[in-house]
């Protein structure tokens, strides 16, 4: 193409860059700045330095207990769901990687829930797990077991949220792994077979190294995605959320949009954001360590 300066290329990228700047970059910067202010959204913001952060470390401050409890719950949720979302989806992807009868139907069933909203996923499972006439309870009864109060009894409250999440989101990773497995050269399996490798050996020595990049991507995106948990507790319990399932975003939402303490809420999201970046970086280091 011609060498002389032309304005046209910039016109092509301008609309996107404009939206990107206004709704992606500006908010990130504003968020940082807001976290140093005390602001009730009505009167003028007051600069308070690091006080919003200090409050999160001061056990006498109002946010202290709630922040750490809900942050802990988010972390607990991430630690439980991420391995499950990875292991189960990889397992299914490997089973469905070979040609088999009804393969397309099976695949469809696993990614169908992904296209639902969190609300619909929660509504469906609330009905399935319903205390008195839910089908899960019905079959537990038929097997001579007690009905479980899935939504009101520990530790089932947690388990319910985990079950809904796995059912709802597994399909995304399933798709990633299906694609990743296609990239593993078939000859490597044949070579391993000639060497007498059994199923486990093939998985460990051929499959896993072959999908390393996919695995890294899945690990990072799943972790980041699960950190954003908000809807499941919010929808299942509304305003009557039990303390042990209230997650950080539920609390941030409350601080920002119920009590309008914008600065404190911003500081919490900054801490959360930094935690997420650090965890991704650690995962990156660990995955690259043995390269």
């Amino acid at each position, binding site marked *: 193409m011609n060498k002389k300066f032309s304005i046209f290329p910039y016109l*092509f990228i301008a609309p*996107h860059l404009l939206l*990107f700047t206004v709704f992606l970059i500006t908010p990130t910067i504003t968020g940082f700045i807001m976290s140093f202010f005390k602001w009730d959204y009505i009167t003028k913001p007051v600069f308070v330095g690091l006080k919003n952060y200090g409050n999160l470390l001061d056990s006498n401050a109002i946010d202290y207990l709630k922040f750490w409890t809900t942050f802990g719950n988010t972390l607990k949720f991430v630690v439980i769901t991420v391995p499950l979302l990875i292991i189960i989806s990889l397992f299914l992807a490997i089973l469905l990687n070979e040609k088999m009868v009804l393969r397309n139907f099976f695949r469809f069933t696993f990614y169908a829930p992904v*296209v639902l909203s969190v609300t*619909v996923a929660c509504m469906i499972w609330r009905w399935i797990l319903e205390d008195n006439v839910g089908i899960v309870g019905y079959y537990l009864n038929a097997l001579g077991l007690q009905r479980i109060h899935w939504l009101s009894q520990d530790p089932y409250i947690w388990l319910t949220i985990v079950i809904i999440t796995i059912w709802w989101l597994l399909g995304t990773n399933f*798709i990633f792994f299906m694609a990743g497995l296609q990239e593993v050269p078939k000859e490597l399996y044949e070579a391993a*077979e000639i060497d007498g490798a059994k199923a486990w050996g093939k998985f460990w020595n051929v499959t896993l190294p072959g999908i390393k990049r996919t695995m890294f991507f899945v690990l990072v995106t799943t972790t980041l995605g699960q950190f954003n948990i908000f809807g499941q507790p919010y929808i299942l319990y509304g305003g009557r959320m039990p303390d042990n399932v209230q997650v950080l975003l539920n609390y941030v939402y409350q601080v920002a949009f119920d009590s309008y303490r914008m600065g404190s809420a911003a500081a919490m*999201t900054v801490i959360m954001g930094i935690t*997420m*970046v650090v965890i991704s970086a650690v995962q990156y280091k660990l995955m690259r360590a043995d390269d």
Partner: protein
Amino acid sequence: MGNLTIYGEPGVKVKRFKVEVILKIVKYAVIGVMSTVWFIPFIWVILTAIRPNTEVYNEALHWIPQTITMENFKAILTDTSNPVGKWFFNSFYIAVLHAFLILLVCSLAAYAYARLNFKGRDKIFWFLLGTMMIPTIMNYIPNYIIIDKIGWIDKGAAMIVPAAGNVFGVFLLRQFFAGLPKELDEAAVVDGAGYFRIYWEIILPLSKPALISLAIIVFLGNWNDYFWPLIATNNVSSRTLPVGLTVFNNRYSVEYGTLMAGASIAMIPPILLLSFGQKYFVKGIAFSGIKG
């Protein structure tokens, strides 16, 4: 598989054959059970929605409804305090316009990043990619303030416009556009076509698969979005379906027939889209995993 043992002892062959058959049965059993668990909820929602509430609360479980009725659907569509029809309409027009806006804005930008030479091109593009690492969680509260300043609270624009600045769409389309042969542009330039004509008449028509993939992913993401529409709307009539249904969920907490009718209605567009666009949806998702 199995070729290597063909010349072995006959007994070994038979044994191995047996093991393979058993493994196959186990495999089908495992997948069958898992797949049933994953799929039954869909069936159960529909089967609940089309039966009268008296039957929903029957202690005895009947998979097939004894009476089929549309009363649950009628109940939710005529409930004036929970305008499910309006929410459906809101979700639909917002998701459609959002998908079109993203296709337009992202394809324009992707075309420039993939096919044009200009100063700072690679720097800007790498910067965009770098920002994909920023957790969007930090953006919600400031974005609320921004759209409040613009006056978009309770307006469809709040859910149509902001996310159109995202980088994923540009990235996906750029990779696709970059893979198209360069000679196409050169021939068009010889014919006297300008950048925009090349983009509109050559690049876009050749990129249908990528555009459809992106449109489906974006439509679904927007249709199902929860946190942002919850923040960006206050009026009951401005809600989108996922947010509206939450209140509805609490209100009808004991009428599961009605609730499942609501869930069925919310399920229709995404499931239809997935059924017809499965190939594009899967390819689009897989793309981000492979190139990511």
